[in-house]
C-alpha cells in the first residue's frame, strides 16, 4: 500500500504545506492593513488565523476552497444557479459536443490526408496554422459569425471546443492510419484487396493505439475551449462564467473552486477515455 501511494501522498502533503505557507505570505499585507486600521497589534498566531480565513484573499487556503466546493455542490440543488454542479454540466455539455465534433472532423481529415495526395500536401499546413492563432482571439469571431447566421447557445461554444480538439486527433490518426508497414500493405495487394477493405481490415485497427492518446489530449483541449468560449459571450452559466464573475467581484475563492472543478472534470474525462482504451485494447488482443 505504502509502496503504491506513499510517494503520491508525500507530494500531495508537501503541496498542501507549501500552499498554506504561501497563503500566509500573500495575504499578510491585507491582514496588517486591517489591524492597523483597527489599531491593534497582530501576533503571529492571529496573523495565521486571519490569512487563512479572509473573505477575499489573494490566495485562498485549501480548506476555504474545500468549504466553498462543498457548499456549492453537495449543499445546493443541482438546478440552482449557485450550484457548481449545474455550471459544470453546462460546460461539460458543450465540451462533449465539441469533442465529438472535433473527433469526427479529425478522423475525417486524417482519412482524407492518408488517402488523397492533394489533401496530403494541402491540408496539414492549414491544420497546423489553425492552431497557431490564439483561441482567445478567434473565439469571439466564431461566436459573432455563428450568431449572425442564427446559431447561438450550445453550438458556438461546442465549435470552439471542436476547434481545439480536432488537432491532436488529426495528428494522431494520420500517424496511426499510416502505421501499417510496407509489408502489410504489399500483403493486402497480394490478396487484391480494395482500398476500402485495406482501410477497415488494416489501417483502422492499426490506428487504434494512436487514437486514444489523441482523444485524451483532445478532450482536455475541448474543456479548455468550452471555458474560453464562455468568457467573451458574457455567459452567466458555466465554469467559464463563474471564473469571469469571480474575477469581476474579486471572489478569489469562487475562482479557485471553479478552477479546481475544471481540473477535476478534465481528469475524470481523461480517466474515462483511459478506461475505454484499456477495454478496447484488451478486446482487440493488444493489451497483455
Amino acid at each position, binding site marked *: 500500500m505504502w509502496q503504491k501511494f506513499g510517494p503520491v501522498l508525500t507530494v500531495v502533503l508537501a503541496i498542501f504545506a507549501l500552499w498554506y505557507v504561501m497563503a500566509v505570505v500573500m495575504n499578510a499585507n491585507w491582514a496588517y492593513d486591517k489591524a492597523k486600521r483597527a489599531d491593534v497589534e497582530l501576533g503571529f498566531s492571529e496573523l495565521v488565523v486571519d490569512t487563512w480565513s479572509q473573505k477575499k484573499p489573494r490566495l485562498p487556503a485549501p480548506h476555504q476552497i474545500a468549504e466553498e466546493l462543498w457548499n456549492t455542490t453537495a449543499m445546493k440543488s443541482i438546478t440552482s444557479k449557485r450550484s457548481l454542479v449545474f455550471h459544470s454540466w453546462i460546460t461539460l455539455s458543450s465540451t462533449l459536443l465539441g469533442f465529438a465534433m472535433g473527433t469526427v472532423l479529425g478522423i475525417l481529415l486524417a482519412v482524407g490526408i492518408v488517402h488523397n495526395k492533394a489533401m496530403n500536401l494541402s491540408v496539414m499546413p492549414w491544420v497546423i496554422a489553425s492552431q497557431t492563432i490564439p483561441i482567445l482571439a478567434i473565439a469571439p469571431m466564431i461566436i459573432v459569425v455563428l450568431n449572425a447566421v442564427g446559431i447561438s447557445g450550445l453550438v458556438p461554444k461546442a465549435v470552439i471546443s471542436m476547434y481545439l480538439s480536432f488537432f491532436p486527433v488529426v495528428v494522431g490518426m494520420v500517424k496511426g492510419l499510416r502505421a501499417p508497414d510496407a509489408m502489410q500493405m504489399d500483403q493486402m495487394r497480394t*490478396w487484391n484487396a480494395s482500398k476500402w477493405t485495406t482501410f477497415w481490415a488494416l489501417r483502422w485497427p492499426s490506428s487504434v493505439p494512436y487514437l486514444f492518446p489523441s482523444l485524451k489530449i483532445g478532450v482536455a483541449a475541448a474543456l479548455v475551449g468550452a471555458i474560453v468560449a464562455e468568457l467573451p459571450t458574457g455567459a452567466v452559466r458555466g465554469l467559464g462564467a463563474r471564473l469571469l464573475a469571480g474575477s469581476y467581484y474579486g471572489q478569489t475563492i469562487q475562482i479557485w473552486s471553479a478552477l479546481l472543478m475544471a481540473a477535476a472534470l478534465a481528469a475524470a474525462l481523461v480517466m474515462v477515455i483511459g478506461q475505454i482504451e484499456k477495454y478496447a485494447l484488451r478486446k482487440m488482443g493488444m493489451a497483455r
Partner: protein
Amino acid sequence: MNQEVVIEAKKLSLTFETNDGPVHALKDVDLTINKGDFVSFIGPSGCGKTTFLRVMADLEQPTGGEISVNGMTPEEARLKRAYGYVFQAAGLYPWRTIGGNIRLPLEIMGYSKAEQAMRVDEVLELVHLDGFAKKFPWQLSGGMQQRASIARALSFDADLMLMDEPFGALDEIVRDHLNEQLLELWAATNKTICFVTHSIPEAVYLSSKIVVMSPRPGRVTDVIESTLPRERPLDIRESQEFLDIAHRVREGLRAGHGDD
C-alpha cells in the same frame, strides 16, 4: 515431357533508379518453372531473390524482358489470386486471433462463412496448428507464427506459393521440423513452390530445382535439377547424392562470387 509451365521469364531485367544511380537487381534472367516444381532460390545477399519473387507477385514492375505467371501477366495473375505469398516476417495482425488471421484473405475474397470456417480448420491441420484458432499471435512462438502465416497463404488454395525466407529467423531444429512439414504439404497438395533461402542444405533438401543466383547485376548462374526422390526422410542429407548436389550449389555460388 509435356508439362504445364507456371512461371516463364525471358531476359527479365529490373533496374532500381536510386539516388546513388541505377541498381541492377535482375539482369537478363531466363527461367522456366513447371507445375508441381519445388524451386529454391539461393544466392548471396542482394542478388535479387526477393526482387524476383516480387516481380512474379506483381509487387515490382520489371524494366525489361518478359515474365508470365500461369500464362498471364503477373498483374492478371494477382487479380485472379493465383498465388499465396509468405513474407519473411509472419506479419500476423495482433488484433486478430490465429483463426481470424487465416480467415482474413478468405473474407476479402468473399468466401461464405461456412466455407471460411472449413478452410481455416483444414489449413490449421496442414501446418499442425489445430486447436490454436482462438489464440492471439503473441501467445504463439515465432515458429508457430510462421506456420500460421503459411496457413494463411494456403487458405485460399492458390496453386502457386511464393515464400521469401519463411524460416530465416528460426533455429536449426525448428527449421528441420518445418522443412519436413513443408515437404509433406507439397506432396499432399502438389502445389508449385518458389522458396528463397540462404541455406544450401535447406535448398537441396527441399527442392526439385535449385536456382543459383549471383549479385550485381542479379543473374541466374546455375539451375540444378535435383535427382533426389520426392520422398525424402531427413537423413537423406547424409547420402552421397545429397552431398554431390550441395557441392554443385556451393560451386555455383563461388563462381558467382568470383566475378565480383
